[in-house]
């Protein structure tokens, strides 16, 4: 994929600094731990809380189209804005929001390469001031189900499509149920979906959180045995790290048929009767 194509979905910190006063660009910080935003953020950035703002408060599902419209309108985000997302955790939640914006059909959305971490490691400016934006009237599209996988489809994909498990090797092999910065007390089963390849999301990123080059990424999935002649479904624990990999395969590498299974392990590991594998990757 050309550099030009990459720039349509991914911008670097210099690009963001040179567009801080561009009225056509809205910066959005996305995190679960929103205390980071409260302390400081990139100048002009508004906040989205991936859980409070993007999840239905009762059912395990997303906010619907009308709720999404209301949310973006209130944040002062219009249909014509270039939305640049960034966040902590190596952009996990920013990538999740990116996929979410695509799900509801936003035209121009991009990620800040490296997210908040790279910005901080570069010692770039962060400010505490919360911007005031004029409300808009945002119109979302119906969900684009071509990028979202549900459980039945995942079961049908076993042995047929590329299943990419992007969790850590310890989670894949069933030694851990969650990333190691979280308590492990959970009730569902451990392991992975049969025939899934374990390609941790982190292998697509450098230590500073930036994405690897297209050549490195192509080699990563090729060496791991992913056949891009087939459709692909990515999953993790709750669908945020797999959004990161969905971004890599669908947006950076330009593969067309790639879905994120946002139900992910928290759903699969709790389903009755579905197959689970515990073995390490051969």
């Amino acid at each position, binding site marked *: 994929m050309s550099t030009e194509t990459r720039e349509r979905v991914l911008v670097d910190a210099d690009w963001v600094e040179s567009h801080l006063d561009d009225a056509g660009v809205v910066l959005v910080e996305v*995190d*679960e*731990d929103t*205390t*980071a935003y409260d302390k400081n953020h990139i100048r002009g950035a508004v906040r989205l809380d991936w859980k409070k703002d993007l999840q239905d408060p009762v059912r395990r599902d997303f906010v619907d189209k009308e709720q999404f419209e209301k949310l973006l309108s209130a944040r002062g985000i219009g249909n014509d804005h270039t939305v640049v997302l960034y966040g*902590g*955790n*190596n952009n*996990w*939640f920013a990538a999740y929001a990116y996929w979410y914006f695509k799900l509801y059909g936003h035209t121009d959305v991009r990620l800040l390469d490296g997210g908040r*971490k790279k910005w*901080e*490691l*570069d*010692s770039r400016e962060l400010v505490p001031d919360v911007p005031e934006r004029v409300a808009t009237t945002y119109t979302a599209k119906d969900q684009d189900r071509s990028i979202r996988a549900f459980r039945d489809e995942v079961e049908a994909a076993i042995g047929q499509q590329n299943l990419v498990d992007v969790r*850590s*090797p*310890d989670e894949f092999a069933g*030694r*851990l149920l*969650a*990333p*190691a*910065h*979280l*308590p*492990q*007390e959970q009730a569902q089963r451990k392991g992975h979906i049969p025939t899934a390849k374990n390609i*941790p999301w*982190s*292998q697509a990123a450098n*230590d*500073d959180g930036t994405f690897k080059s297209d050549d490195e990424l192509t080699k990563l999935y090729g060496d791991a045995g992913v056949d891009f002649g087939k459709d692909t479904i990515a999953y993790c*624990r*709750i669908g*945020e*790290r797999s959004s990161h990999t969905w971004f890599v395969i669908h947006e950076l590498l330009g593969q067309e048929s790639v879905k994120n299974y946002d139900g992910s392990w928290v759903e699969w590991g709790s389903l009755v009767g579905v197959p689970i594998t515990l073995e390490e990757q051969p």
Partner: protein
Amino acid sequence: MCGATAGGPSTDGVDLTQESVVQGVVHRDGQPVAGAYVRLLDASGEFTAEVPTSATGQFRFFAAPGSWTVRTLAPKAAVVDRPVVAAKGQIADLHVAL
């Protein structure tokens, strides 16, 4: 819950006899460093988790028993790798100097 709280997860309400804790403090010239990024790598060098340090320079992981590497990244500092062994019911405490 997948967000990394600065400093890592709280131990409040957690049964530590069941956890393999890796924690510590990042210092520079004797002062704690807030906002450094601490990554936990498994025995094969694969990324497992990452937290920013708290205001007091602290970090914590709930790991699994075994050998790990704690890698610290901070502005204007070289990357520091420290090996550590975690065991169930125990707390491995590190002091990382930048």
